[in-house]
């Protein structure tokens, strides 16, 4: 842009001084000097313009390259890069494509393995469930069946995380207030203390199954650590906010950030009594990110934890 302006400016100066009337009246020496200056600057400008153009031509493949790396980083698999440009670039592109193929193969293998494990595990657990009916002691049978239920829940959570279902679910128009109320009612119907505060109706576009899972995970955490959960829905300046809060012990400030990482749990001992795999928050976070939103955790005063999902409307 700047170079074009300079070219135009210099060119106009040059043509001004070569104007016939001016050449006649001007001193020959100074005319010659002006001529030289104009020529030199014009050449310089052309060279700068060429350099900029050449640099752009050389860097463009690099830009494509980094854009592609960026997209893969976000989990979008795509066509292999064109292997062109300088020898180094051809080599880098080839290496990049090979890496991409390898990642793709690893993901496919993982998905196949998960499907196979899931099928065999579900079959075995189904058998176990049916066998448990034979247990005569009511107490023992109830305990075994509750263990089986917990086992299958852990298994399904891990599979949900690994499959990353939310990436595949399409957006659709949903009454998100009705969704949160339904979640609250379902929890209350099985005896949990969950409340909902917010509008009766709020229609927006999102992934209903995934969002339900994200909020459900936050509610389950609140129930587990505090025995109750309060859901709040609000809209401020085109931002939709869903807050799940409790008045439990909260999370030590220095551990807040790490809680969203996979398999993180407040009690590092992974003791049994608080249960779970430590994937709930990670799954919720992934889902919210896939909506282009964010999940934040904060301690409340005087006590309690507040998990806030913010989504752009």
């Amino acid at each position, binding site marked *: 842009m700047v170079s074009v302006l300079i070219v135009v400016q210099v060119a106009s100066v040059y043509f001004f001084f070569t104007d016939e009337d001016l050449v006649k009246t001007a001193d020959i020496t100074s005319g010659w000097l002006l001529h030289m200056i104009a020529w030199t600057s014009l050449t310089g400008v052309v060279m700068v313009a060429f350099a900029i153009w050449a640099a752009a031509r050389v860097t463009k493949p690099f830009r494509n390259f980094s854009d592609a790396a960026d997209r893969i980083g976000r989990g979008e698999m795509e066509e292999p890069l064109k292997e062109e440009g300088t020898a180094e670039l051809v080599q880098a592109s080839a290496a990049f494509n090979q890496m991409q193929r390898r990642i793709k193969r690893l993901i496919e293998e993982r998905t196949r393995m998960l499907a196979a494990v899931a099928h065999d595990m579900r079959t075995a657990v189904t058998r176990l469930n049916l066998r448990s009916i034979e247990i005569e002691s009511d107490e023992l049978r109830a305990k075994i069946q509750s263990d089986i239920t917990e086992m*299958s829940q852990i298994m399904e959570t891990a599979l949900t995380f690994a499959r990353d279902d939310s990436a595949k679910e399409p957006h659709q*128009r949903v009454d998100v207030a009705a969704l949160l109320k*339904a979640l609250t009612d379902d929890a209350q*119907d099985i005896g949990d203390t969950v409340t909902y505060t917010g509008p009766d109706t709020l229609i927006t576009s999102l992934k*209903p199954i995934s969002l339900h899972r994200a909020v459900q995970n936050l509610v389950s955490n609140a129930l587990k650590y505090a025995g109750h959960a309060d859901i709040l829905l609000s809209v401020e300046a085109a931002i939709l906010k869903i807050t799940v809060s409790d008045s439990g012990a909260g999370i030590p400030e220095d551990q807040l950030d790490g809680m969203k990482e996979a398999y993180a749990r407040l009690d590092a001992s992974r003791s049994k009594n608080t249960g779970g795999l430590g994937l709930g928050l990670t799954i919720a976070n992934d889902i919210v990110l896939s909506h282009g939103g964010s999940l934040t955790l904060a301690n409340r005063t005087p006590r309690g934890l507040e998990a806030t999902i913010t989504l752009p409307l």
Partner: protein
Amino acid sequence: MTETQQSILIVDDDTEICALLSIFLGRKGFRADSAHTSKDAEVLLARQSYDLIILDIMMPGEDGLQFCERLRRSDQTPILMLTALGEEVDRIQGLELGADDYLAKPFNPDELLARVKAIIRRTSPQKQSNTTYSFGAWRLNILRRELRRDDGTLVPLSSGEYALLEALARGGGQSVDRGTLMAQTRGREADPLDRTMDIQLSRLRKKLGDDAKEQRLIKTIRNSGYLLVLNEGDAA
């Protein structure tokens, strides 16, 4: 309950599951046969008719979905599909191919029994029922278990609200008695002073925007039960 013993065909490639299911259903008063492939199932179906088929999706050779589709061309025996949890695609596909209900593996045996009884109960008097119902400015799809507004907006319902609405819709514009609705909405632990249904009903009316006094959509029929006013063409 019924005079004649009801028969169930179990189709699952896992022989142990077939055996365990047969014993379980046998104890609950059903007669159960099992087949491990779709071919075996066809041989048995040619020989006699069943009140219900329990069909596993994941089978070597012809899978449950393909078998269900093929079977539906000539046979209307109710089908309970066994799917893997979370695999939404299988579930919807199975129902669209003509299965009557689905249950995710691993299932709780009592849950299976409840589904089996529900399917037999609702398929025995009248044949195939509708899959979508419209009423007021609403559409209910019982395959996808979805309630939508006319403009397509999804309005999620709680399990209790959904069960109640589905039972009312299946009434086909006729009154559905309180006992039937209660059986649909009651949770695992039945409460003798069951107020659950009334709570679900008032929540449902609120979500549908149906005034409890005006009762444009859900009408209370004195001494009889409740009626969902279906739009023209959906009423039985």
